[in-house]
């Protein structure tokens, strides 16, 4: 019998108006990979923050290696051997790996000694990483390695990982899993937070499932089907997305010879991109983020302008048009970054609705805003896209990731765009919200629209797309019929090679 490393007894935590955690108890054994599962808003983050010392429980207690444990701040938790890799990395682009790691340490050693240590750790755990490289030039997977190594240098007993695979390629996931198994073999414990049920079934020894702040169950994932686990999480069964028909109509969006030289030092230039999307078609653009995805979205949304004829809607050149002119023509976009790009964090939902809404009944020709109509529009979005928010006057930042994403997508889809471009539609979103978003994208396509889905989640692309292309290093592959592709093919495409398949 393995010994218990961390024990939680009746942990409760409330915020004004919300019970984030109620009477949660479970144990994590040494050398165990323990999954913490739940929808967004189920209370996972709150729970983990208490273990990591960012918050303190209202009720209940924790014991670490049989001793009472109540960290008042993260540094105390770290001293007790708890480390955490956050979903959003806190790294400085303009510094190199070793400098970034030194910044997070209380008493950093000399940078050369530290670099040596980093190399040792990275070698022994199979996490290749050059300490001298600039973080801005690293892929998402490599950035995550920086965070993991930062944790491992503290030699933790328990490593908490929040949604670690959401930004990784299949290969990077494999590398990560090897590392996690190695850590487990050394007797370290891992608390693994994720929505991806298949992953959890592959790597986790035990799973605790939360719903609405309460523990609703636990299981050994290997012996439980993904469907069963999913139903425990959601409390009901949800169907996977489906669509009515797949009939393509006329060519709606055509992009030819699109090249953009990025002004951003850490951006990726686009070179000679060609593709087209038809009515009823969903084109999936795969590839790891940072390969030109943001640049492609801004070229299509109108944030970045090009020569007129590179982008066409129904043979109408729009490359020079501003975002609102494109919206008038029926082209709408939803960027990846929810807070700060797709929505203004401190502004209310009503004000955020106004961001992409400027028709006559919203803003009259004197520039006066009709807030009654904006409120109506916001109500519709919240109702039809099941956005959970106390009021329409809540700030965008107060919504959970999944709810805000539903809002951002709903805001555009309710305008019935002819062409809809979306970047990472379900990034960091819980399973139920993700299924909902995918279904609404499918519905949009079946109602005479063309959709471009840029995503690094290959499962998602396989689930909803008709055609598929890969964006690597600013270049786009040919488009292929998704039904003819296997995941091996996709791997090859991501490596930059063309396939000998019938083009779509």
């Amino acid at each position, binding site marked *: 019998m393995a010994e218990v490393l961390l024990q939680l007894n009746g942990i409760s935590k409330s915020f004004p108006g919300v019970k984030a955690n109620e009477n949660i108890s479970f144990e994590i054994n040494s050398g165990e990979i323990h999954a913490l599962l739940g929808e967004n808003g189920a209370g996972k983050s709150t729970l983990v923050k208490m273990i990591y010392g960012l918050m303190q429980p209202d009720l209940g207690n924790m014991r670490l290696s049989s001793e009472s444990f109540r960290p008042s701040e993260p540094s105390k938790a770290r001293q007790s051997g708890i480390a955490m890799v956050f979903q959003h990395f806190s790294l400085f682009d303009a510094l190199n790996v070793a400098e970034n790691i030194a910044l997070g340490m209380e008493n950093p050693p000399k940078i050369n000694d530290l670099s040596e240590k980093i190399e040792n750790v990275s070698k022994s755990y199979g996490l290749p990483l050059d300490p001298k490289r600039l973080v801005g030039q690293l892929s998402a997977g490599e950035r995550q390695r920086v965070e993991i190594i930062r944790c491992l240098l503290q030699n933790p007993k328990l490593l908490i990982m929040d949604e670690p695979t959401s930004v990784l390629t299949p290969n990077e996931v494999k590398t990560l899993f090897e590392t996690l198994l190695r850590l487990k073999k050394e007797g370290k414990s891992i608390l693994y937070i994720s929505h991806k049920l298949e992953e959890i079934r592959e790597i986790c020894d035990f799973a605790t499932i939360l719903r609405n702040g309460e523990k609703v169950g636990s299981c050994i994932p290997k012996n439980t089907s993904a469907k069963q686990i999913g139903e425990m999480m959601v409390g009901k069964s949800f169907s996977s997305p489906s669509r009515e028909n797949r009939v393509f109509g006329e060519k709606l969006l055509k992009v030819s010879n699109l090249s953009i030289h990025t002004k951003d030092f850490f951006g990726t230039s686009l070179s000679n991109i060609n593709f087209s999307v038809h009515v009823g078609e969903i084109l999936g653009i795969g590839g790891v983020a940072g390969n030109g995805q943001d640049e492609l979205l801004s070229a299509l949304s109108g944030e970045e302008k090009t020569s007129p004829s590179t982008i066409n809607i129904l043979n109408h050149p729009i490359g020079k048009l501003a975002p609102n002119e494109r919206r008038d023509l029926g082209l709408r976009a939803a*960027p990846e970054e929810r807070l700060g*790009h797709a929505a203004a964090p401190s502004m209310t939902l009503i004000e955020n609705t106004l961001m992409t809404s400027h028709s006559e009944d919203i803003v009259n020709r004197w520039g006066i805003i009709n807030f009654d109509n904006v409120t109506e529009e916001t109500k519709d979005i919240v109702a039809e896209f099941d956005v959970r928010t106390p009021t329409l006057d809540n700030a965008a930042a107060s919504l959970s990731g999944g709810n805000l994403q539903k809002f951002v997508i709903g805001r555009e889809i309710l305008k019935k765009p002819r062409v809809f471009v979306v970047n990472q539609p379900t990034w960091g979103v819980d399973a139920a919200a993700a299924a909902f978003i995918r279904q609404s994208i499918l519905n949009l396509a079946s109602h005479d629209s063309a959709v471009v889905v840029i995503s690094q989640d290959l499962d998602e692309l396989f689930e909803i797309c008709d055609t598929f292309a890969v964006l690597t290093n600013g270049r786009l592959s040919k488009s292929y019929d998704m039904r003819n592709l296997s995941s091996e093919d996709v791997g090859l495409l991501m490596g930059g090679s063309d396939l000998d398949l019938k083009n779509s």
Partner: protein
Amino acid sequence: MIRLEKRRSISKLWTTLTPIIAVFLTMVFGGLMFGLLLGDLASAFGAIKLIFWDPLFDENFASYSRPQLLVKAGPIILIAIGLSIGFKAGIWNIGAEGQYILGAIFGASVALGLFPHESIFIFPAMILAGALGGFIWALIPAVLKVYFKTNEILVSLMLVYVAENILASVSQGLLRNPDGMGLPGSRNLKNYPSAHNSEIIANSGMHWGVLTAFLSVILAYFLFLKHQKGYEIRISGEAPKAAYFAGINPSKTIIFCMGMSGLLAGMAGLFEVAGPAGQITMSFNSGYGFTAIIVAFLGRLDPLGILLAGLLMALTYIGGEIAQLMLGLPGASIQLLQGMLLFFLLATDIFTNYRIKSKGS
């Protein structure tokens, strides 16, 4: 143990309460300071009363001080409203003082050029010229920022010193009073009826500039609550990337915000030079352009807040003068009092973003 916990959203209650608490704390600690300075703690209350109460309600002072309150607050409010438009968009016009000076020079030039013709169109033309002067002066940092990505804080601030030199030059040269026996300074516009920014109601201090300041408060409210431009300004300040995605052109926002703040500062300058100051002199400007920055923040960039903050700031000026005169308090102690106001505001501000949690250990 007491600790601070970040609020999930900014507390509206505290946003309104903190300025009031800050004023109260300033009175308490300011009084304490005055008491210590005078060597008699019992006189602390008297000193505070002399600054905050007597200018308005003591029969010896009120007849002079009440009109002065509007005279001093008017330009400060007008400038601060303009600045708040830019500050909300994250555009930092620090050079309102320069725009104020240029507005005064432009506006006064119209009058001095037309002297001694009399016409009801002269004063409106002066207002337009004053607005234009401030507008152009503010456009320089705006255009440089748009085309060359220069920092508007530095450029607008440095243009203040350029403006001061221009002011010194014209008051001794171009605009000097030909009948002034060679002394620097222009003709006094108070003696030129068509150009004089006279009081609308006698002995109220209410001149056209004060009226314009009140109007600007109302217009600013309308701009931010109802108008698309105000929304664009706010979102540009809150989330520039989101603003860009929403189709808002950042260059246009910069030009609009800088232009508007320059325009209002220029008008303030004209009203001052054609009214209370009367003539262009090397030192007719009294630092209102800088004081307005404090007032804009003290008023939380909110039009009504700025109105109140402007009146309060004017009160400390006037009350401060009285206190210096009556109690012999040093001038620096009045500046300390104004500094305290900003200090306590920033200190109590923490409650808008954090809540206090007391916990047993």
